[in-house]
Every structure is written in C-alpha cells, then in structure tokens.
C-alpha cells in the first residue's frame, strides 16, 4: 500500500484502458463513414447518407468521450511519471506535441462541421470533412503508437551529458519498424471494433424488424470490412508484430507463451497455465514447431525460454501477460471465423434469414473491445520491467514527490467520475440506436421522440 509505484501503474492502466474504448471505435468508424459517404456519392442513393449520418452521431458521442478521457492521459506523463518525462521528454515530447499540432487541431476544427454541418455545407464539402476527420484520427493514432513504439524499441536517440535521452534522428524515431508494424496492427484492430459494432446494430435492427433497408446495409458494410480487417489483424499485421517481439523482446515472447525452456521445434500453446513456482506450463495443448516457424520462419529455429534470460529482465506479471496474449489471439481467431461465416452467408444473400447468425453478430460486439484491450495489455506487460526498453525501468520512472495516498485518491476519483461518464454514454448511445438512421428531413430531430420511439 505504501509503495506509490503500484498506484501510479494502476491509475495509468485504468485511465488508458478506459480512454481507449472510445478511440478504437472512432478510428474504425471514421473509415466506415468515409466508405458510406463514398458509396453515397457514387450511387446517388440518399440512404447511404442517412446511414453515414447515423454513424456520425454515434461517432460524435464517442469522440467527445475520447476527448475528455484523453486530456488526462497527456498530463499524467508529468503528474505521475515525472522522472520518465524528464528522461524521455526530449524524444516523446516530439510526437505528443505533433499529435496536438497536426492531428487534434484538424479533428477539433472539423468535428463540429461533420456532426452539425450537413445543411450548412455542400455535399462535397461535407464529404471532405469526413475525410478530414478520418485523416486526423488516423494521424493522431500514428503519433501515439510512435510514442509507445519508442518505449518498446527505442531508436534514433543518444544519452546526453545530463543522463537524459536526446534526439539524434527524427526520421529514425518517426519511422521505426516497430512503429510501422504496431500502427498497422492497431489500426486494423480498430477497424475490427468498428465493423463489429456496425454489424451488431444492423443485426439488432434486422432481428427487431425495424429499419430493414439500413439493417441490410449495415450488415453488408460491417461484415465485408469486418472480414477483411479480422484477417489482416492476424496476417500480415499480427504476424509482423510477433516477429518484431521475437527479435527485439525475446524474453517477452517467452513469457507470452509461458515458455521456460529453450530449444528448437518450439510449439505454439493453445491452452495451458503458466506455473511460476515450478517454472513450467501446466496442462498444455501445444501445436509443435509452430512458434519457431511464426517467430523465425523455420520449424528448427531455437526459441529461447525464460530461463535463458536473467531473472531481473523477466516481465513482472508473467501470468497476466500470458493470458492477455492468449485472450487476444484466441478472440482474433474467433473473429475470423465469425466474419468468415457471416461473409459467406452475405455473399449468398442469405444472412438476413439466418436469425441464429444475426444473434451471434448482435452479441459479438463487446469482444473486439476485449481483444483490443488484451492486445495493449500484452504490449505493455511484455515491455515490463522496462518503461523504456533496456534504458529505464518502470520502478525508476514515477514521480519522486507524489505519495501513494495521493495517487490512490485520484485513482478513486477517476473511478467514480468514469463510472458516471459510462452511464451517460450508454444512455445517449442507446437513444441514438433507438432513434435509428432516418432521412435528414423525415422523422424530425431525435428530441421529438421522447423515450426514443423508433421511426422504422
């Protein structure tokens, strides 16, 4: 209780996990909204614009949540991780400032126009606004992933005379291979979330037999993007990411797989429980040779186990890391399966009749959120015990003058505040879903329908 480090870590973990529930949807939706507006302009069918408008309203609510929960993240580097900020600010300050200057100004200037500007702007200008939001949100993600990539695999720096990190090559830092691979994986995973949410709302309308034309549209767009993105999250992006972990964080890879012994023909673990005391994996089901192949390209490659590394470089919560990774990978496989089947049915034009499948699609939307969270937990727990890999330990990065009780207080404060925000969020989003995708001049504004009467 008296060690503030645990509370610093918990507060950052809690606020970042909660925050990321919203951007993963807005980034995925930003792409899907552009797709819908593009289809509308191509086909001249105004129903595409109704679909886009509906999702823009959901986007707006999520975006607001993302903004207000995002502001504390930037400040917590300074408040809770002051030694880290002093040590690495000259490097990661670059990308955090770039995010503000290049991405946030763009997004914040055009969000109001996207949500409220459809009448004020020409169709073309409104279309361009949706592209501006897409570019802004995807650019913002790049700067954040780049910041994290530096913590995972520092490049382009030197250690200055005062012991802090100095930037040597902006280009090496901005285009590090880790950043590019992690960005691709993160963005594809965000599109998976967006696609599952769009699909789920489509399935809900189809099962309720309301807004049937839009339900079919949501299902088609959601399933097609979902199938492509689910596949891409495994290959090539997940595969690429795993190879980088194998190369630059071999001890993290060993922990992710609960692998204690070294050797060739390393198997990939489907099920099993890491047992730290006995230093082995209990009750494993393993596909032999596959880890060697996935990590290094041949079945005979040696994959080092945890025992090959000094104990003080082992990730400090191997069980959680192991389970996070397996939850992510397991769910990722499930997504390919679900979207594959749904895609096949959609292709045969039979998805709308398959109520069982629609139920699955309606209830599946929370799982991409879990997979995204587990994926980030894998990345961040795998980075431990380092704050900046190989350069600064997490234990050395916290603020020197902040006491544990103080952090506990603010952590409790965030918990309460975010609980209330979550209730408000669910209330408003469910109103929008009940109101449904209606034409611009039909059905009136949502407020004309107290209790959210649907206009199907």
């Amino acid at each position, binding site marked *: 209780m008296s060690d503030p480090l645990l509370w610093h870590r918990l507060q950052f973990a809690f606020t970042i996990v909660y925050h990321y529930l919203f951007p993963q949807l807005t980034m995925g939706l930003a792409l899907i909204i552009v797709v819908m507006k593009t289809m509308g302009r191509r086909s001249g069918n105004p129903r595409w614009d109704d679909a886009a408008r509906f999702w823009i309203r959901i986007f707006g609510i999520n975006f607001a949540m993302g903004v207000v929960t995002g*502001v504390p993240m930037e*400040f917590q580097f300074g408040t809770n991780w002051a030694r880290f900020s002093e040590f690495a600010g000259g490097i990661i300050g670059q990308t955090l*400032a*770039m995010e*503000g200057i290049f991405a946030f100004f763009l997004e914040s200037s055009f969000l109001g126009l996207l949500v409220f500007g459809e009448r004020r702007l020409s169709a073309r200008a409104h279309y361009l606004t949706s592209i501006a939001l897409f570019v802004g949100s995807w650019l913002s993600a790049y700067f954040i992933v780049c910041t994290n990539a530096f913590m995972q695999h520092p490049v382009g720096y030197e250690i200055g005379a005062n012991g802090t990190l*100095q930037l040597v090559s*902006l280009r090496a830092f901005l285009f590090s291979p880790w950043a590019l691979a992690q960005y691709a994986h993160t963005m594809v995973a965000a599109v998976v979330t967006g696609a599952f949410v769009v699909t789920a709302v489509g399935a809900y309308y189809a099962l309720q037999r309301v807004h049937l034309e839009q339900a079919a549209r949501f299902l088609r767009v959601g399933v097609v993007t979902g199938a492509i993105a689910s596949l891409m999250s495994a290959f090539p992006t997940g595969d690429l990411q795993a190879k980088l972990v194998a190369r630059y964080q071999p001890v993290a890879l060993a922990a992710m797989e609960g692998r204690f012994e070294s050797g060739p023909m390393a198997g990939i673990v489907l099920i099993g429980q890491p047992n730290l005391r006995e230093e082995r994996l209990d009750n494993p089901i393993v596909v032999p040779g596959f880890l060697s192949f996935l990590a290094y390209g041949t079945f005979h490659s040696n994959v080092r186990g945890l025992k090959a590394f000094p104990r003080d470089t082992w990730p400090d919560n191997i069980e959680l890391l192991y389970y996070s990774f397996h939850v992510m990978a397991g769910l990722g496989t499930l997504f390919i399966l679900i979207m594959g089947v749904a895609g096949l049915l959609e292709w045969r034009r039979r998805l709308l009749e398959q109520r069982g499948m629609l139920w699955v699609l309606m209830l599946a939307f929370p799982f991409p959120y879990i997979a995204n969270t587990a994926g980030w937990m894998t990345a961040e727990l795998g980075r431990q015990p380092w704050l900046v890999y190989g350069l600064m330990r997490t234990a050395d990065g916290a603020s020197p*003058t902040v006491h544990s009780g103080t952090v506990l207080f603010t952590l409790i404060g965030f918990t309460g505040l975010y609980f209330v*925000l979550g209730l408000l969020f669910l209330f408003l989003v469910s109103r929008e879903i009940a109101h449904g995708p209606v034409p611009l001049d039909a059905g009136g504004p949502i407020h*004309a329908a107290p209790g959210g009467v649907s206009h199907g």
Partner: protein
Amino acid sequence: MVEIWFAIAVVMIGGYVVLDGFDFGAGALHLFVARNDTERRQVLAAIGPYWDGNEVWLLASGGVLFLAFPKVLASGLSGFYFAIFLVLWALILRGIAIEFRSHVEAPLWRAAWDAVFGVVSLALPLLFGAALGNLVRGVPLSSDGWFTLALFTDFSARPPVGILDWYTIAAGAFAVVAIVAHGATFLVWKTDAAVQARSRRAAITLYAMVAILWPLLTLATWFVNRPMLTAAVSRPLSLLALLVAVAGLAAVAAGLRRHRELMSFAGSAAFILGILAATAASIFPVMLRAIPDEALSLTAYNASAGPGSLRAGMWWWPAGFALALVYLATLFALHRGKAAAARQGEGY
C-alpha cells in the same frame, strides 16, 4: 534556440488563454446573460464550433513544454499534482456538459448541464490564475529540481507555502474577472438582441473592475516577487508588452463605447496577451522560480531538452502552427456573423 522555444511556449500558452478564455468566460456568463433555452443555445452556438479546438491549445502547449523543457513539465505537473487533477476533472465535466447538453430536450437535463458548465467555466480560470500566481511567487524546489506543495498552508505567501495563499488566490480572482470580461466581449461580438445587451453591460462592469484590479495585483506582486517587477519596467520587451496591454484596454473601452464589437474583443485579446507576455519577458529565463533560494530555479537554460530535440522540433513546428492558424481562420470565416441558436438536434 532555447530562447526561440521559450517564445514558442509563451505564444502557445497565450493562444490558449485568449482562445479557451473566451469560451470559459462565455460559459461562466451564460447563466446570467442567457435566460431561456433559446438564448442559452445562442451562447452555445457562439462558442460551440471553437471550444474543442481552443482546448487543443492547452494540449499543444503541454506538448511544446514536454519536448523543449521536459524537466519544467515533469517538476511542475508532479509538484502541483492535486491541483492538476482538479483542472483535469473540471475539463472533463466541461467537455461533457457542452457536448451532451443538446442531446436531450428535457428542461431538467439541460438546466443541470448548464449549471455544471457555468460552475466549471468559473473554476478553471480561478485554478489557472492561481497556477500563474504560483509561478510568480515561486515554489520550494529542492536541489535536484523537484517539489511538492500542499493545497494550502497558512495563506501567508511565506514558506512553507501552499498552492493557495493570499497572493495566488488574488491572482486567481483577477484571472476570473479578466477571463469573464474577455468572454463578455466575445459574446458582444457574436450574439445579438437581449444576450448581446446583457453581455455588453457585463463587459463594461467587468472591464472597469479589471482596470482597478490590475494595478492592485501588480502592487501585490511587489510583496512576493520584486525582481520581476524591476525587470518588467527595465526590459524593452516587457515594456512593449505592457504597452500592448494598455492599448488593448483602451481599445476595449473605445470599442464598447462606440459599439465597435470586434474592436473590443480584439482589444481584450491584446490586453490578455500583453500581460502574459510582459510576465514572461520579465521572468525570463526562469520558468519555475525557486523560493527561498532563487539559485535553484528551473530556467530555460538548465531545464531544456538537448539541442538535437530543439532542432528537430524546428523542422515541423512552424508548418504545424501555420496549419493550426489556417484551421482557426477557416472556422471563424465559416461561422462569421452573429451566432443563431441552432435548430433542435443540429447544433450545440
């Protein structure tokens, strides 16, 4: 190079205070100058398109400090820990209030969010003003550049100091009056009819108070930071900034008297930028003043990032800043003229 980044930081923070300042001020005033839902929505329509972008100036200021003066950011944010979280929570409530208010038409829902919006819009300038007061008064930095402050001690402005004492509260109170006055000039410019008339009366009263309180606060500063006042009247840059502030004040008065609405808003912006720039120019190079031993202060020179980081930032910052100004100009052009309450569901 260090001097350039100090100037950039001042520009970003000044931009933040002037821009988010007008929507803080409008938010604090709207309970008084807008008395029914249509009038409230006129105020929200006036600031709605801008507030989020204005807040980005805070993040961008933080980013600039982070990349150019990481030790100042680290020491300042961790030392003021508790006050920073009050600010963050207020910012969260404020964003939620303005974004979620218009989603439900029920009068109670709206009245509740209006109240939240009004209260936090008033609290934020108080906190930011007190923060500036802390920078002027100084904080108990240790020899390795860290400090921690209680929220308050005996309010005496003598060690051991707290975040709140008579001087920093006075600075906070001045900031509230100045920012609300600033918001009033914005509403005079952007609204019409009853809201404008009430805002104009508020602007006249509040700016009269600013003109009285400003010299008083300056006098108070004499007791906590004499070197700064000496520097303020001996350095050409700070004298120039003071001149801008006085000219701004005159422009506010003239603009309000002659119904030149943009002139009074621009004058108000010049006044705020002027006093901030004068403060910055007279404390330079000190960024975090140490008391009682001033030699321990964090300065632009001893707390900056290495030359590699500062040079790299110069490659992209000017282009990014120019883009930000283009977006801002585009927004003001798109929303030129008086703000009208949006149709239900189609605006703030």
